[in-house]
C-alpha cells in the first residue's frame, strides 16, 4: 500500500522580510521534506534556512518539557517538572513581585524576530497589562537609526518603495546593504539581478566585499565603519558646488535646505565638508566621492538603498538622515525607480489586519512622561518608563539609584536569546544573577535559557496556527499548524491563558486560536476569505504598479502634505531642535563615533569590529542546525595583511579581545574585507569556559552597551585586538 504523503502550505516564520512560501510534506504526523513556492509568479522562494526547518524542528536539542533550575542560577542544571508546577511557580512569583515591588519591577524582554502576529509576546503583554502593567524596552536592534531618521524627515516609518520598483532604476547604490545575507524583503536580490541585466549601474559601499557586491555591483567602495555620514556630506558638498541638486524639488517639497547648505559649506562651523575632508575620515578617495556624486545626481531615477548596518553605529541616526537628504537633493523621492533613502525600511503600502487580541493599556508605559528623544507621535514606545535595549543590564544593576526608571526584580523573557544578542555579555551575566526571578519561553537551551529559574518549552510555528503580513512586497501569509506540538511544548497563547487563570484575570481571552485568527483576517480589506488564505497560505495582492512611497505627496503636494509638522520633507527639524541635545542636531551632521580610529584606545585595540548578519542564520537562530553550520562555521573575518602581521593563518584559532571581554574563534583570512576592519557575524552562541572566555564566537562579549543619542544600536562601533592563540 502506498504511504500517503500530504503537502501543506505555510509561510516561513522568520522576520527577515522574506515570509517565503514553504510546501511541507508530512507523513504519519511527521514532516519529511520541504519544498518551496512553485505556483504562479511572482514566486516567494525560500532561502537555505527555510529549507532546513525540518532539522531544526526535530533537533535532539529541542526543549521538550517545562523545567526548573536546580543548583546555581546560570549553571545550566535543570529538572523536569509538570506544566502545573511550572505555571504555579511563575504565577506565584508574579503575584509576589507585583505585591512587594509594584508593576514596574516586572521587566518583559525579547519577543521579536518572528512574523507571527498572534503568537509571540502579544498574549503575555496583554496578560501583564491586565495585571498592573510591566516595564519593557525600546530601541530596535535592527533599525532604530533608520526609524528615527524616517520619522524626522518624512513623519512616518512607511517610506520605502516596493522592491520590484528597482527595475526602473538607472543607478542603485547599495550602502551597507547585503541582500543575499539579510534578504530584506522577498525577491529583493532577484530584482537586483534583473535591474543589472536591464542596464542599471550598481555600486556597493561597504567595508566588506559581500556576496551581494560580488553578484550585483559594478563598483565596490570600501569605507571605514562609522564614517559613512562624512562621505554622504561630501557628496552633498559636490552637488552644491557643482549646482547638481534639484533646486525646484527642494523649493517645492522641503524645508531647511539652506541651513544644511550652510553646514556643508562650512559657513556654520568653519569646516567645509569637502571630498578631501571626507577622504581623511572615510578612507574613500576624494575622486571616487566626486565621481559617484555626479553619477548619482545625474542618473535619474536613482535608488540610494541603505542597509541598516551603517546606522547601527554611534550616531547612526545621522547616517540615515543624511541618506534621506541626498535622496531629496536629487529629487528621487516619490518616483518610480527612485527612493526616499529609506531603502529597506517599511513597506510603502499599508497592510490591513484586524486587531491581534484586544490590546490592553500598559499602566507603566502610560504613567510616565515622554522621553526627551522621542517624537510626540511615538506613543507608548516613547514612554520614559522604557529602557533602551542596549542598557538593560546596566538598568538592572543600577536601578533607580542609577537614574533608571525602576528597580527590576522579575524578568519575563520571550522568544529571545537576549543575553546573547545584547551588548556586553559579561555585564549581562552580573545582572542576571541579581534579579529575584527569571522565566524564559524558549525552544532551545540558549545562553539566556541557562539563566532561567523556570524554563517553558515552546511549540514551533509548524505546530500552531498564525498569520502574517510580510514586508517589501504585497502579500499576506497564513502559518498552518502542520503537526502536533513536539512533546509537551505549548504555544504563547496557551501559556498566557493558563497564567491568566492562575492570576484571576477573567477577561484575558475567551476565544480559540482559530476564532482570533478569523477576527484578524476579517479586519483586512484585502483578504477575500479565511479558508482560502488558510489553504493556500498566501494571498497575493495585485497592484497595477509597484508601490512608491510619497508618490501622492510629490504628484499633488497641495492636497497631500507630508506627515511632518511642517507638511514638508524636513531637512531641518524643529521637533529635533526641541530635543535640545547637541548630539541630536536638527540637521544631519557628521559626529565622530566613540572608539573611532582617532581614539587613543587604538594603541591597545587597533581593529574596528563589525558584526554583520550571517548568511545562514537569522541572528542567533539556526546556529545549531548541522545542514547550515557545515556550510559556514563561525569565524572572525580578517584581511590577509592584518593576519600576516599577526602571524595568523587562515583557519587558525585566535584570541579576539578588548577591555569588555575575550573570545577564542577561528580566523577566516581573506581579501574581501578592508584592512583595519574585522567582522564577527552576529548570533554566534555564547559558550564561556571557567575563565569567562567565549568559545562560541559571540561578538557581544566585545560590544559596548551604549545606545546612540537618538537610540540607534551601536553594534558596529567597537575596537578590538586580535592575537595568535
Amino acid at each position, binding site marked *: 500500500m502506498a504511504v500517503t504523503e500530504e503537502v501543506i502550505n505555510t509561510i516561513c516564520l522568520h522576520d527577515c522580510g522574506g515570509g517565503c512560501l514553504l510546501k511541507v510534506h508530512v507523513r504519519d504526523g511527521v514532516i519529511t*521534506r*520541504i*519544498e*518551496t513556492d*512553485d505556483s504562479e509568479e511572482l514566486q516567494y*522562494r*525560500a*532561502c*537555505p534556512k527555510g*529549507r*532546513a526547518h*525540518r*532539522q531544526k524542528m526535530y533537533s535532539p536539542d529541542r526543549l521538550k518539557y517545562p523545567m526548573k533550575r536546580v543548583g546555581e542560577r546560570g549553571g545550566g542544571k535543570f529538572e523536569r517538572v509538570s506544566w502545573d508546577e511550572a505555571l504555579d511557580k511563575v504565577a506565584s512569583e508574579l503575584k509576589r513581585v507585583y505585591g512587594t515591588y509594584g508593576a514596574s519591577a516586572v521587566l518583559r524582554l525579547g519577543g521579536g524576530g518572528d512574523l507571527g502576529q498572534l503568537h509571540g509576546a502579544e498574549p503575555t503583554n496583554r496578560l501583564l497589562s491586565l495585571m498592573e502593567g510591566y516595564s519593557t524596552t525600546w530601541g530596535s536592534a535592527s533599525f532604530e537609526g533608520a526609524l528615527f531618521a524616517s520619522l524626522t524627515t518624512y513623519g512616518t516609518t512607511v517610506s520605502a518603495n516596493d522592491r520590484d520598483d528597482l527595475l526602473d532604476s538607472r543607478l542603485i547604490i547599495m550602502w551597507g546593504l547585503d541582500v*543575499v545575507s539579510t534578504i530584506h524583503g522577498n*525577491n529583493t*536580490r*532577484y530584482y537586483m*539581478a534583473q535591474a543589472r541585466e536591464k542596464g542599471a549601474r550598481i555600486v556597493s559601499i561597504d567595508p566588506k*566585499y559581500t*556576496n*551581494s*557586491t*560580488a*553578484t550585483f*555591483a*559594478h*563598483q*565596490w*567602495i*570600501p569605507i571605514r565603519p562609522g564614517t559613512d555620514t562624512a562621505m554622504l556630506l561630501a557628496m552633498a558638498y559636490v552637488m552644491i558646488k557643482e549646482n547638481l541638486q534639484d533646486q525646484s524639488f527642494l523649493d517645492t517639497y522641503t524645508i531647511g535646505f539652506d541651513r544644511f547648505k550652510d553646514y556643508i559649506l562650512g559657513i556654520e562651523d568653519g569646516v567645509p565638508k569637502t571630498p578631501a575632508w571626507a577622504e581623511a575620515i572615510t578612507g*574613500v*578617495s576624494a*575622486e*571616487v566621492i566626486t565621481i559617484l556624486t555626479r553619477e548619482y545626481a545625474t542618473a535619474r531615477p536613482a535608488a540610494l538603498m541603505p542597509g541598516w548596518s551603517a546606522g547601527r553605529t554611534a550616531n547612526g541616526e545621522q547616517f540615515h538622515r543624511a541618506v534621506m537628504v541626498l535622496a531629496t537633493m536629487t529629487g528621487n523621492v516619490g518616483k518610480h525607480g527612485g527612493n526616499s533613502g529609506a531603502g529597506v525600511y517599511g513597506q510603502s503600502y499599508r497592510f490591513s489586519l484586524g486587531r491581534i487580541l484586544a490590546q490592553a493599556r500598559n499602566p507603566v508605559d502610560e504613567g510616565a512622561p515622554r522621553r526627551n528623544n522621542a517624537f510626540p507621535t511615538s506613543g507608548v514606545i516613547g514612554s520614559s518608563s522604557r529602557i533602551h535595549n542596549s542598557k538593560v543590564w546596566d538598568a538592572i544593576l543600577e536601578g533607580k539609584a542609577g537614574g533608571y526608571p525602576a528597580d527590576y526584580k522579575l524578568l519575563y523573557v520571550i522568544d529571545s536569546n537576549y543575553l546573547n544578542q545584547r551588548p556586553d555579555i559579561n555585564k549581562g551575566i552580573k545582572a542576571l544573577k541579581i534579579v529575584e526571578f527569571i522565566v524564559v519561553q524558549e525552544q532551545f537551551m540558549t545562553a539566556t535559557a541557562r539563566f532561567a529559574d523556570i524554563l517553558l518549552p515552546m511549540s514551533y510555528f509548524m505546530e500552531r496556527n498564525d498569520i502574517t503580513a510580510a514586508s517589501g512586497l504585497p502579500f499576506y501569509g497564513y502559518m498552518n499548524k502542520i503537526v502536533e506540538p513536539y512533546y509537551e511544548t505549548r504555544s504563547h497563547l496557551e501559556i498566557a491563558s493558563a497564567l491568566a487563570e492562575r492570576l484571576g484575570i477573567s477577561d484575558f481571552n475567551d476565544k480559540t486560536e482559530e476564532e482570533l485568527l478569523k477576527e484578524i483576517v476579517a479586519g483586512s480589506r484585502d483578504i477575500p476569505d479565511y479558508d482560502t488564505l488558510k489553504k493556500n497560505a498566501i494571498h497575493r495582492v495585485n497592484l497595477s504598479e509597484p508601490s512608491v512611497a510619497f508618490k501622492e505627496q510629490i504628484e499633488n503636494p497641495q492636497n497631500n502634505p507630508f506627515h511632518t509638522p511642517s507638511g514638508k520633507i524636513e531637512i531641518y527639524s524643529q521637533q529635533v531642535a526641541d530635543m535640545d541635545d547637541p548630539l541630536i542636531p536638527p540637521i544631519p551632521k557628521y559626529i565622530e563615533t566613540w572608539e573611532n580610529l582617532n581614539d587613543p584606545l587604538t594603541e591597545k585595540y587597533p581593529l574596528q569590529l563589525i558584526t554583520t548578519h550571517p*548568511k*545562514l542564520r537569522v541572528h542567533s537562530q539556526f546556529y545549531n542546525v*548541522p*545542514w*547550515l*553550520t*557545515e*556550510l*559556514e562555521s563561525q569565524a572572525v573575518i580578517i*584581511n*590577509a*595583511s592584518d593576519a600576516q602581521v599577526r602571524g595568523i593563518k587562515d583557519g587558525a584559532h585566535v584570541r579576539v579581545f578588548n577591555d569588555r571581554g575575550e573570545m577564542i574563534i577561528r580566523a577566516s583570512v*581573506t*581579501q*574581501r*574585507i*578592508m*584592512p583595519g576592519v574585522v567582522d564577527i557575524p552576529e548570533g554566534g552562541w555564547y559558550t564561556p569556559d571557567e575563565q569567562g572566555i567565549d568559545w562560541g564566537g559571540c561578538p557581544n562579549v566585545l560590544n559596548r552597551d551604549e545606545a546612540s543619542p537618538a537610540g540607534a544600536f551601536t553594534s558596529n562601533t567597537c575596537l578590538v585586538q586580535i592575537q595568535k592563540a
Partner: protein
Amino acid sequence: MQMGFYFDQTRCTGCDVCIVACKDWNNVPAGPASWRRVATIEEGRFPNLFVTFLTTSCYHCSEPACVAACPSGAITKREEDGIVVVDREKCRGRDHCDFCLQACPYQSPQFGSEPNAKMQKCNLCLDRLEEGKKPVCVDSCPMRALDAGPLENLRTTYGQESQTEGFIYSDEIKPSVIFKPKRSVVITSR
C-alpha cells in the same frame, strides 16, 4: 536523449540553498556527502577583487568516466535519458574502492561518514522528473540561475557555452552542462 543542467553564473549569489534543498529532498544527512556543492572563486588583492560562485553536481556525462572505472558494475548510464545512476547495493564501499572518485574530474561521487560508505550522488531527482517536476535544486533557486532538461532544449534556450569560471570542460567525458559565464572583469574601487 541526454538530460543535463544549465547554470547562470552571473545570477548565483552563493546562497547555498541548492545544497540544503538537495539534502532535504534526498534525505542526505549533514556530513561529507553532498550531491550539490557551491565553490567560491576569489581572485585579486584588496581592493581589486573578482568573486564568483560555481554550483556543481554530477553532470551526467556523455562518456562518464565513473561508469568505465567502476569494477562492480554499480554505476550505469540510463539509455532513455542519459542520467547516470548508482546502485548502492552493488557498490563495494569506500573502504575497498574509490575508482569512481579518482576517475571523475568534478568530484561528483560522494561518500558519507559511515563505515565503508557506499557511493551516492545526484540522480537529477529522478523521482521528481517522473512527476513532471524539475530537480529540487532548480526549483529552489531564488535567482532562477539553474535549469535542467534535455540538453538539446537547453542549448536552444540558453546557447552553447560549455565553459565558465572555475570549471573546465572535459572533451573526453563530455559533461552535460551549459553555462552563462561570469567573465573575469575586475571590479575596481579607485
